[in-house]
């Protein structure tokens, strides 16, 4: 069966890699992103690689108005997608967030509030009769499993997103909408380009994207990518807070 996929935040490295996998399967794609030049290039790439149809929507992903109008456009055009990947995020600079409350608010809004709104709006659309169910895959992060000193704002937003997805999955289960929570570890991408030393824990966007597509195909609920992060986070989750608060990572 040919799939129809909506990708929100299509310019992220992981999203681009996932789009390539779907394009090679001749999927039809609806790509949503902020940067119009980039999205045009990604759409062209998807077409060359075999996507049967590509449409794009450009706007501020964090704007509630844009979220509502975009989903309303899907309603109006009868967009055939029954799969959505929500793939954008911003790696928050914790030091800046310490002193710049406006920045902190924007970051929390980007990483949690707006992503939750997309998930909600798309889940609701898929649950309606004309779609007949579907799948929402949301890229959260291992950082959401426990707030760390070096990463408190980003981790908190992703913790919120993880909890939201878990609840949404339960709410939507009876309505035929499946929610996949994706928790990648470190990804070697433009978002983390400033991190100089990259060791064995770092995964390529292509590997993470392959894991995402597999998790969606298999209707998994929560996946860690690569899977060893489940064990790392299990250990990190069990460090007593008295010790944890002294750790500098």
């Amino acid at each position, binding site marked *: 069966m040919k799939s129809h996929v909506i990708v929100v935040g299509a310019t992220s*490295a992981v999203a681009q890699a996932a789009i390539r996998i779907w394009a090679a399967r001749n999927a039809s794609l609806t790509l949503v992103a902020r940067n119009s030049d980039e999205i045009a*290039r990604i759409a*062209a*790439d998807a077409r*060359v690689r075999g996507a049967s149809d590509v449409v794009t929507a450009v706007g501020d992903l964090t704007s509630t108005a844009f979220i509502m109008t975009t989903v309303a456009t899907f309603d109006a055009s009868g967009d055939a997608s029954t799969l959505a990947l929500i793939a954008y995020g911003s790696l928050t600079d914790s030091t800046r967030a310490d002193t710049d409350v406006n920045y902190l608010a924007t970051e929390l809004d980007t990483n949690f509030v707006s992503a939750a709104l997309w998930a909600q709006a798309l889940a609701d659309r898929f649950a309606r009769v004309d779609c007949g169910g579907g799948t929402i895959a949301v890229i959260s992060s291992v950082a959401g499993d426990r707030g760390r000193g070096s990463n408190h704002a980003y981790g908190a937003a992703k913790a919120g997103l993880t909890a939201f997805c878990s609840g949404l999955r339960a709410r939507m289960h009876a309505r035929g909408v499946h929610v996949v929570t994706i928790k990648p570890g470190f990804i*070697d991408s*433009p978002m983390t380009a400033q991190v100089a030393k990259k060791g064995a824990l770092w995964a390529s966007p292509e590997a993470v994207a392959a894991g995402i597509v597999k998790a969606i195909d298999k209707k998994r609920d929560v996946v860690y990518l690569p899977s060893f992060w489940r064990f790392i986070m299990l250990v990190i989750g069990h460090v007593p807070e008295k010790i944890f608060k002294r750790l500098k990572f």
Partner: protein
Amino acid sequence: MIPRSLDQPWGRGFSAKHSHAFADGGAFPRATGSVLPRGLGRSYGDVCVNDSGTLLHTFRRDRLLAFDDVHGILTCEAGASLADIAQTLLPRGWFLPVVPGTRFVTVGGAIANDVHGKNHHISGTFGRAVRSVTLRRSDTGLHRLDAPNPLLAHTIGGLGVTGLIEEVTLELARLPGPGIMQETKLFGGKSGDGGIDDYLALDAESKDWNYTVGWIDTMDKNLRGVFFRGNHCDGPDEWLAPNAATLTLPVDAPRWLLGRWSARAFNAAYYRAQALQTAKRSTIPLWQFFFPLDAVNAWNRAYGKRGFIQYQFVVPTDAAREMVPRILAHLRESNVASYLAVIKTFDDLLSPGRMSFPMPGTTVALDIPAPNDNDRRALDRADAMVADVGGRVYPAKDARMSAVMFQRFFPQWRELEAVRDPMISSSFWRRVTREGE
């Protein structure tokens, strides 16, 4: 695709200090020192190194922008890898007209080094397939270069210094399928120095084969070797994609494994293995024919922590018969250890780049692990032998040639220097353009 190392060249052996920038399609990056565009860093030496400067990485700009599958015309971003292009378009019957020994290079890198392959006598260099290039310069902005254009002729084989190659339009080749019908023939192996004659005779009778190359045992006085020739053919659908590399070299080979006695033993074993093979004619997946080493991740670790250099020279047709054995004898008598040397004859197809390496003649490429002072002196002497007969050494693989020698091999280098982007430089370019040495 992500490079294995952002700092080291594929030959390893030295590390440089870099700042890193990532091409994003926007303005040329601001940097205090010089900037060098870099693809996947598969060059062996310092053409992909810019010590104390900035590397401008292009590997994320890898989108395929348009493909005309009637005429095989592809437009892509310059960071697209040959691996990606080949794998995406082979199922539709198209392949790159020229591939080097690894598919893990970018289109931009293949143009900047004007790479060649086993079909040089039929298709020439990679640059011949280039229809147009979009070049971003720090001083004059964006240029679209269509052949023939003098700046395009300097960009092809221009080692990256004319600007950042952003987009490329290429002419691909139609294939009958994913197979290669391959024949192997032994040459040399007798007493006397007939190896080179046997090789040249085999090469001469194989001109209508699409791909020809020889493996040559440079540790053997008689220059024995194995000649490979192949043509495209169809094959099963499983051959349309390469097998994922399942083997990764986890550690560096120890030093004692890399001396000349090991090289002798290795080469002798390889020759015997080829001689024992009963099937002299076989059909294999093209991936295996073109990219045998790509099947091993990080194969450069086989040469140990101190890395290796690759020495590739070409001598003109008239001089080949005499000079190839003489240069190899000189290296052997100087106790230079070499594994997996490759010999190939270039035909007279014109290279489109002003600085392209191939010229009509015979080329030999040798891998030399962890070169010491003795090896370096022997190679300097070999450079002079090559220069004396009007040959060249390949910059894309070089990490050691002197400025004087480079300027003898490529007297046209000043033309490239004249159109060099003022912000771009590389460790290689600084090394070989020094004056008065």
